[in-house]
């Protein structure tokens, strides 16, 4: 079970709990986790990744295990602790604006 935490704005929009728990078949990659997240909460489509290109939106970042994974290739394996559910995969809205 992979644990995912999304920003509060998206929790409200898509009615996502504080921590979403998702079944993700191995290999557990960024793409696989986001695919599973969007399948469970379809209102998130287009909000984290571009609808068409599937590229990360510029002001959204990905973190796990104290690492910034935002610029990792989407098909790279996520840390084992994320795949095992020990650590959450964090979708973070970067701080900007007022």
């Amino acid at each position: 079970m992979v644990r995912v935490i999304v920003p509060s704005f998206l929790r409200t929009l898509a009615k996502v709990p504080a921590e979403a728990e998702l079944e993700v078949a191995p290999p557990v990659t960024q793409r696989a986790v986001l695919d599973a997240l969007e399948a469970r909460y379809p209102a998130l489509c287009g909000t984290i990744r571009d609808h068409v290109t599937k590229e990360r939106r510029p002001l959204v970042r990905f973190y796990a295990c104290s690492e910034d994974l935002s610029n990792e290739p989407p098909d790279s394996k996520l840390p084992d602790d994320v795949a095992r559910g020990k650590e959450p995969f964090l979708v973070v809205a970067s701080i900007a604006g007022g």
Partner: protein
Amino acid sequence: MKIRVLVGTKKGAFILTSDGKRKSWKVSGPLFSGWEVYHMAGSPADPDRIYASQTSGWFGQVIQRSSDGGKTWETPGGGPQKGPDGMPHGESNKFVYEGAVGQHLFYDGKPRPWEFKRVWHLEPSLDDPDTCYAGVEDAALFQTTDGARTWKELPALRTHATAPKWAPGAGGLCLHTIVLDRKVPGRMFVAISAAGVFRSDDSGGSWRPMNKGLHSEYIPDKNAEVGYCVHKIVQHAAKPEVLYMQLHGGVLKSEDGGGQWKDINKGLPNDFGFPIAVDANDPDTVFVIPIDPEKGRIPPEAKLRVYRTQDGGRSWKAMTKGLPQEHCYVNVLRDAMAVDALDPCGVYFGTTGGQVYRSADGGDSWEPIVRDLPHVLSVSVQTIE
């Protein structure tokens, strides 16, 4: 009789409701708290159906829909749904240009590919609650016919022969105004900053620029077909051949469906401003809010004044009663003024300072409905019997 004022702000949406007297108001919200709501619009065919453009620099575009007058909201479609063929469909916030994207001019004068950014304006169909048009940045026109579950571009506008010459205004290359003609079937107008006005007589299948008579100090060619920073156009249902325009520099009128425009600025403190509205009961009564472009886009002399003509633009009079006449430094954006359908006509506008003012007497006097909302992006009004 009920009046519902839909207010989009930089940090959520608000709904202001009153009865036909328009004296006391209930303020509800914020809806979509923290998101920019560029525009909300109710269906003329079903006042319970409201569409909202919710957008964010972080998370992109979302379309919200209410079917109960704004009490509850949903993101119709809400993402991929499997059709009988197993293919995903039904994505309410998916705005994808049809076919080749093409290029427009950018600020540096170089070509740049079209890129979807947000929905500026929603215009529900006059007779079908499930049909709505969306004007977007970068400029294009989209349509839903299934209540916002899916959106499809009407590409003839973006692929018009003049489109490679379109360039963004300071706010972006946005299609911000959609006018559906109430008398001529299939006729609609759109306005784009900074391209100009276009008219279709075949429901968006083809378009032609309608910019004769427009002028800009930034365009050396006085006969240029496009390139004009039109801020807003309005039409009166009873006299649809007459259109009024707030241009980047000028207030203009057309008496032939956009074929030719002429200035009607005389009597205004300056010719710059964003919104323009026409009285629901009188096609010769028009409202503008002059703004000084040279001093940071604030009211001239720091006095917030609505100017009203009652003779189709031959003369203007300042409406000041109830509006701040000193130390006022707010702006009023292009989609932030609207009228109701009562007699006398109610006029409403929202400011970048968060005030929403209303006049229940055709502009003679004003009162704030609410004073401290976030920066107001849009105001639209429903008159519900």
